[in-house]
């Protein structure tokens, strides 16, 4: 009888421990992540969930979202209702693409013409030079290309007049990251890191401090200039020469100023933090095209912070240090 009792105790302890482990595992948020290759970028999404099934389904769904927006905003390959077709004479445009274009269009007046989605003809020509890493297009050639935003007509459909072409490079990634975050929130996943290279968007914090997000140094590629602690925010960098080239000792980046038709060279990089990734993306491009002083004033109208890196100087908005 005594022996029997001992077995019950041992088995009891085992069972309780097992149940404890199972409950612990179930209640613990685990990270799940996946790589994606869209929009000419390496993208990694990590989300925290207590259900593997739900997490994996979400990662599959996110693949579809990125693919859809990649196809819609691709300038070089044809997809139904997509940008390539629109740029080449089609007027039937996917409603989601129309939304991005409308968003981008609104930035023309907000940025006093610096963020101009109608820059397609000029940016495409520069991309050819960036690709071959040789030569620089002539100003007279660039000036003949139409980048007039007034030739973009948005009604029920979108009409592009006088061969004007749209380039959504400045906002497509940021906009899409917001869409991915919206989807995650809609299925109850609130903790996540969406990392699309120069665009990072994070959800609610997992650890007390929030997420630790490094900013790649514009001075030395293999260093970080800052490590920020952020949650529920988007952080976007514009600048750097990773997508540019050097010719005759001069470095050319890929962000073209629509007023000069040449790459901007006010600074090495600018990083923006705000609650929307589309906003941070648009703002960072706009700030990159302005001198720091103008940008400092400009950003005051937005719920956003920024840090500017110049060759010999660093500037930041007052609120930026709250993230350090």
């Amino acid at each position, binding site marked *: 009888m005594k022996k029997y009792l001992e077995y019950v105790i*041992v088995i009891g302890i085992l069972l309780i421990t097992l149940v404890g482990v199972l409950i612990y595992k179930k209640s613990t948020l685990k990270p799940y992540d996946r*790589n994606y290759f869209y929009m000419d970028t390496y993208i990694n999404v990590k989300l925290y969930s207590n259900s593997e099934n739900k997490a994996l389904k979400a990662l599959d769904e996110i693949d579809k979202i990125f693919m859809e927006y990649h196809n819609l905003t691709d300038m070089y390959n044809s997809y139904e209702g997509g940008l390539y077709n629109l740029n080449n004479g089609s007027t039937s445009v996917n409603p989601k693409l129309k939304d991005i274009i409308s968003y981008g269009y609104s930035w023309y007046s907000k940025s006093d013409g610096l963020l101009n989605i109608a820059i397609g003809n000029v940016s495409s020509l520069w991309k050819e030079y960036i690709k071959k890493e040789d030569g620089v297009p002539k100003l007279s050639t660039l000036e003949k290309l139409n980048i007039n935003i007034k030739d973009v007509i948005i009604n029920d459909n979108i009409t592009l007049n006088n061969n004007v072409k749209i380039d959504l490079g400045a906002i497509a990634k940021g906009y899409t990251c917001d869409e991915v975050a919206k989807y995650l929130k809609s299925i109850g996943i609130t903790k996540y890191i969406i990392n699309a290279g120069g665009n*990072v968007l994070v959800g609610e914090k997992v650890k007390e401090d929030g997420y630790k997000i490094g900013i790649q140094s514009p001075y030395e590629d293999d260093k970080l200039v800052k490590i920020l602690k952020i949650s529920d925010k988007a952080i976007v960098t514009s600048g750097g020469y990773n997508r540019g080239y050097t010719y005759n000792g001069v470095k050319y980046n890929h962000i073209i100023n629509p007023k000069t038709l040449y790459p901007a060279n006010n600074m090495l990089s600018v990083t923006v933090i705000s609650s929307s990734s589309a906003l941070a993306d648009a703002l960072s491009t706009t700030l990159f095209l302005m001198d720091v002083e103008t940008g400092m004033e400009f950003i005051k109208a937005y719920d956003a912070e920024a840090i500017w890196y110049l060759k010999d100087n660093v500037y930041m908005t007052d609120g930026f240090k709250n993230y350090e």
Partner: protein
Amino acid sequence: MNKQDIILCLSVFIIALLVLVFIRLPKKGNVAIVYYDNKEILKINLKIDNTYTVKGYNGDVTLEVSNGKIKVSDEISPKHLCSRQGYISNSYESIICLPNKIVVKIDDSEIDAVVMLWN
């Protein structure tokens, strides 16, 4: 219960606790992880100097480990950005070969993400 039974009970309990702890602790170490597209294809011990070859989208990608650092030494791509990048050794760094859909990361990062100069 005799002494042995108590020892048995205690050891079961300790083993269970250990299991709990191990579930919780993330694995850390001097390891590089190589991904092809969305799949992890190789874990590399950075403490041993060696050369590895993996299949990328355009063909073979060669990785070289030396003195705890890793680099892509050979790959097929238009601009060879990732082999031009050279060695990485910091945990927050990664090598990204877009045309080959190969990503190399170091496994013990305290940093959740890096905003890169790609925009």
